[in-house]
């Protein structure tokens, strides 16, 4: 069990599954196809030993000291660069969509895929801790989708994307949308090799999200403000949210839209077309 958020996930198994439209009739259990791959190191029964943390302690002689100075995220960064090279070679625009849970990433994708399917070949990688509900919603639009269940992992990592790409086999000159796990903290630290990172907030959240999660905003290139159809009913101040975002990031482009009513979606499509270079 994960003792931090109490999510009750028994182990750290990552599951990657291709979800097809025939499987969209609403059950959320796994179908057992796809392969498993042990990612995080497993944990058994917690044997407590006293924390040993003598700051700056010296190393004993007679043993080999390896001064490695190695970046802990180095392996992820390297794999992310592999992915980036793959995308560049195939002229694929890969977007990493990040937000808090419920901001509307899946809703935005559903509408986008429906509207753009005759314009671009579109592919989706869905990150989710447990279920394949989102992947089923995506598959229903006709887009090719691979689900990554991260188990207790609260973010996607570059090697998961690498594995998912082997199943997805995206075509040249296509769009790849990666829906990250709903979380504004650690997805910021894990480069997936994407061409751009898009952060989504909705007007039902606080305007101060950017200053609460500065890393996420700082590493994003576009900020989408979703659910603007609800603006008459909430106290969300759009200009204030933008001001906060500008404080902590280089984001100059904001797109206000409603994935539900479709208002503002054309601006998002224009942004995509510009990115793709059409």
């Amino acid at each position, binding site marked *: 069990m994960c003792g931090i958020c109490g999510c009750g996930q028994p182990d750290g198994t990552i599951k990657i599954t291709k979800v097809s439209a025939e499987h969209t009739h609403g059950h959320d259990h796994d179908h057992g196809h796809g392969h498993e791959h042990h990612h995080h190191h497993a944990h058994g029964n917690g044997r407590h030993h006293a924390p040993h943390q003598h700051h700056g302690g010296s190393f004993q002689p007679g043993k080999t000291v390896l001064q490695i100075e190695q970046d*802990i995220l180095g392996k992820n960064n390297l794999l992310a660069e592999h992915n980036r090279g793959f995308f560049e070679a195939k002229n694929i625009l890969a977007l990493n969509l990040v937000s808090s849970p419920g901001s509307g990433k899946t809703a935005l994708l559903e509408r986008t895929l429906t509207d753009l399917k005759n314009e671009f070949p579109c592919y989706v990688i869905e990150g989710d801790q447990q279920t394949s509900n989102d992947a089923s919603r995506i598959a229903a639009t006709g887009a090719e989708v691979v689900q990554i269940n991260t188990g207790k992992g609260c973010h996607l990592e570059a090697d998961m994307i690498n594995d998912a790409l082997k199943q997805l086999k995206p075509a040249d000159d296509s769009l790849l949308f990666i829906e990250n796990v709903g979380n504004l903290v650690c997805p910021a630290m894990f480069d997936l090799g994407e061409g751009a990172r898009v952060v989504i907030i909705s007007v039902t959240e606080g305007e101060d999200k950017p200053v609460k999660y500065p890393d996420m905003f700082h590493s994003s290139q576009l900020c989408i403000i979703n659910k603007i159809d609800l603006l008459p009913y909430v106290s969300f101040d759009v200009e204030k949210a933008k001001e906060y975002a500008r404080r902590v990031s280089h984001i100059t482009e904001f797109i206000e839209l409603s994935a539900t009513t479709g208002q503002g979606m054309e601006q998002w499509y224009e942004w995509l077309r510009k990115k793709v270079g059409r």
Partner: protein
Amino acid sequence: MHELSIIASIVDIAEEQVKKASAQQVDSIELEIGELAGVEWAVLEFAWEVGVQRSVLENTDRYIQRIPGKARCVECGSSFLMKQIFDPCPKCGSYFNEILKGKELRVKALTVS
């Protein structure tokens, strides 16, 4: 809970080094972690025990060197200690700061035998 993935990456690095050095165990490991690296200390502490179980780091002494955040204001040029990421410049209040130190996430050294 990315602390657990960070620990998993540290374990990977340690296992690779042990193999390369044809060693049996890791006696101690020295980490450098910046105050602005997005690591929650209490979570790291908690997750460590879980994360290193049945790995080469299970009985390893761990030393963490915490590196304070340091930034330079892009507007007025003054350098200051940054406690929280994107704190404003204490002199002119600007939020446009270049982070000089504090984002480190490194395995500095290992002692193997």
